[in-house]
């Protein structure tokens, strides 16, 4: 699921990024295609052959003349990644091809693959690519902040949970379980885009591949609810979860985010609900599915809120429909929590078949128009 989520994000990104492999890209000496940008990287410099180039499909050839492994990033002014190429060894060459729209960017070489890199401002001009929208750039920047904030808030929430596990306190761990997942669930499509983290933190038993160790939230969930006990193994798994979440927090800022990937990510959040939460599959031992459900809806609503100004402009009727459907789904979810500001939801095994049908209908009612959001912002 993780890898497909990643490819979906890339496909939705609207930036056809073609990153050649280390071996396949080796160019003949000076056999560079006409018009390609040359970047010469060293341990202390990042020289760009042209800082002003035509927008459109751009090929960048990087040569690492330094002694350290380096990488090259093409960045939006807000540090979003347009394209990247990692692991360029000393003395080797690599190339990147990317669709770059008119606007200002920065190239960053990172000798030793550390820090902010050595930056050079560049500009893509002309009609080769459509002009970027400052409004959408702002939405993406705001969403990037949101995703970072969610990961930051997750660190202490996860620690409360893992501390309780390490202390052997089953009840306290159960109490802290659902809220430790909230930040992750709100930004799940982004979180899942790190294909190596998701299988360690959020995999369910039936999702394990042969030979894969079961770690993460759902493994601990099973110990707490099904076995009702905490042993040394669980305590070690709790610390592992801390480590994995810290890694997620460290890397989440580098996720590729575009307006259309945001929009389709919001739809994917509802798809998550529709596939795993409405059925009660996700939290099959704790039955805290509705807390995840709410977090997924909140994450989708955040995306919509950020893209709404553009949506209203491009498709007013869709915006009206989405406004109504978000209200409807939140009203429906409110029926299952006593306190409208809290996250204490009815356990899902107490939700009747008829009520599950109502929730499922509500998800369909929201997800169908939400699937049209990407088209509306891409207009």
């Amino acid at each position, binding site marked *: 699921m993780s890898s497909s989520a990643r490819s979906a994000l890339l496909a939705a990104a609207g930036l056809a990024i073609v990153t050649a492999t280390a071996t396949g890209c080796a160019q003949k000496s000076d056999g560079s295609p006409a018009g390609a940008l040359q970047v010469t990287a060293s341990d202390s410099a990042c020289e760009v052959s042209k800082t002003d180039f035509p927008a459109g499909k751009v090929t960048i050839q990087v040569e690492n003349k330094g002694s350290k492994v380096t990488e090259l990033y093409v960045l939006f002014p807000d540090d979003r990644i347009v394209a990247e190429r990692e692991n360029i060894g000393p003395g080797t060459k690599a190339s990147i091809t990317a669709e770059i729209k008119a606007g200002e960017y920065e190239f960053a070489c990172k000798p030793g693959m550390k820090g902010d890199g050595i930056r050079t401002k560049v500009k893509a001009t002309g009609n080769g690519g459509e002009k970027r929208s400052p409004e959408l750039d702002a939405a993406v920047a705001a969403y990037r902040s949101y995703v970072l904030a969610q990961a930051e808030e997750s660190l202490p929430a996860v620690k409360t949970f893992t501390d309780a596990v390490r202390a052997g306190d089953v009840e306290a761990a159960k109490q802290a379980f659902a809220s430790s997942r909230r930040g992750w669930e709100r930004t799940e499509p982004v979180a899942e885009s790190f294909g190596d983290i998701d299988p360690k933190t959020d995999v369910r038993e039936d999702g394990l591949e042969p030979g894969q160790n079961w770690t993460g939230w759902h493994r601990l969930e099973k110990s707490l609810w099904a076995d009702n006990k905490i042993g040394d193994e669980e305590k070690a798994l709790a610390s592992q979860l801390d480590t994995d979440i810290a890694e997620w927090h460290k890397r989440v800022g580098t996720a590729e985010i575009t307006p259309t990937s945001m929009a389709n990510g919001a739809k994917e959040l509802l798809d998550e609900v529709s596939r795993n939460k409405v059925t009660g599959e996700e939290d099959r031992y704790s039955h805290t599915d509705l807390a995840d459900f709410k977090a997924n809806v909140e994450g989708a609503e955040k995306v919509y809120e950020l893209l709404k100004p553009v949506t209203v402009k491009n498709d007013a009727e869709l915006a009206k429909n989405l406004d109504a459907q978000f209200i409807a789904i939140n009203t429906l979810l409110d029926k299952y929590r006593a306190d409208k500001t809290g996250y204490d939801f009815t356990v899902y095994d107490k939700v009747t078949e008829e009520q599950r049908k109502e929730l499922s209908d509500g998800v369909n*009612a929201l997800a169908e128009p939400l699937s049209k959001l990407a088209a509306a912002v891409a207009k």
Partner: protein
Amino acid sequence: MSEADPESVQSGSAATADASGGGTSRRALLAWGGAGLALGAAAAGGTAAILRQNSEPAAPGTMGMAVPFHGEHQAGIATPVQDRLHFAAFDVKTKDRAELIKLLKEWTAAARLMTAGLPVGEGGFGGLPEAPPDDTGEALGLKASRLTLTIGFGPGLFAGDRFGLNGRRPVALVDLEQFPGDNLDASRSGGDLCVQACADDPQVAVHAIRQLARIGFGKVAVRWSQLGFGKTSSTTPDEQTPRNMMGFKDGTRNISGTDKAALDKHVWVGAGDGSDWLTGGSYLVARRIRMHIETWDRTPLQEQEDIFGRDKGEGAPVGKSKEREEPFLKAMKPEAHVRLAHPDTNDGATILRRGYSFTDGTDGLGRLDAGLFFLAYQRDVRKGFIPIQRNLAKNDSLNEYIQHVGSAVFAVPPGVRDKDDWWGRTLFT
């Protein structure tokens, strides 16, 4: 919505399909029981398109044809029965009358396209790569396959003045009583709306319901649906009556789709029947009838034949040699199915059956989950299905081998007259 005009598309292919017929087709058309339908379409400006209506049963070569969507009556009732069914019942979720009307108009537009063999909206591909296509695409390249879409309104639509329809509930749209032996599952019963999709290609029928459900998300929700195959009764008497899952011909005496007098008398709601908005419409009773296949298969041949009142090979009624010979009811056992279902046993009560067999895999106990999805159209449920079912539920020896597990009743509005008309206009305006 696409601007493509399905009428013109129909006309285009009609010219080919009827090239040899010419005036013959038109005469055949007028003789057809749905003559009113055809005349309605003609009055509405349909020309070549109406020639598509064929009085013959689906002959080889007609399978891919389009059945006209416009007419006095909805297609899918007297239309020669297609091979496949996807039937869906919906709950209306919106509380807004205007939104419901808007949906019905959107559904009508989609139905108009799909019954002409065209995709809905902007089609199944070629749009924005970032967006899901309007049409799901599984019927692309398939012919119209005589797809008919028939809508019905359930009692719930009129309840508590939900949509300002207080007082518009037809008197004959009664809630069905609990019949002896019923074991109804609420999740397979009822519904505020229904759509019957019939086609010669199952994929075309499934596609149609899927599109309508998708267009409806947020306004309506699918409550239950049923797939059917192997039509179990015929509205074309010169065709052999198909067999049901028990291996018997049942429904031989069905109303013919060409018998205008019988249709007017027993199927179409007349002008003086009580609810003007429903004139030209009908009432539909849908029942999911599970068959206890395994015990039936262990029943001796003689007993099987006695239970039905027909022989298994030819389908002839007891004492007769041919299927279509007039049955002599008194020759049959008093509890024989054919005898108890016959109009003569029920004070003339007559219905138009359009049922399909179903097999939904097995039931978890390894028993075939199969039976008859019974669909009956009639002018008045109180004079059609109810007295017949009362009689059958009480006496029919077949009851040992069947159980009614789903039930629904709908008022079926008259046909959509032309391109400006829509499903439910007579009810909502």
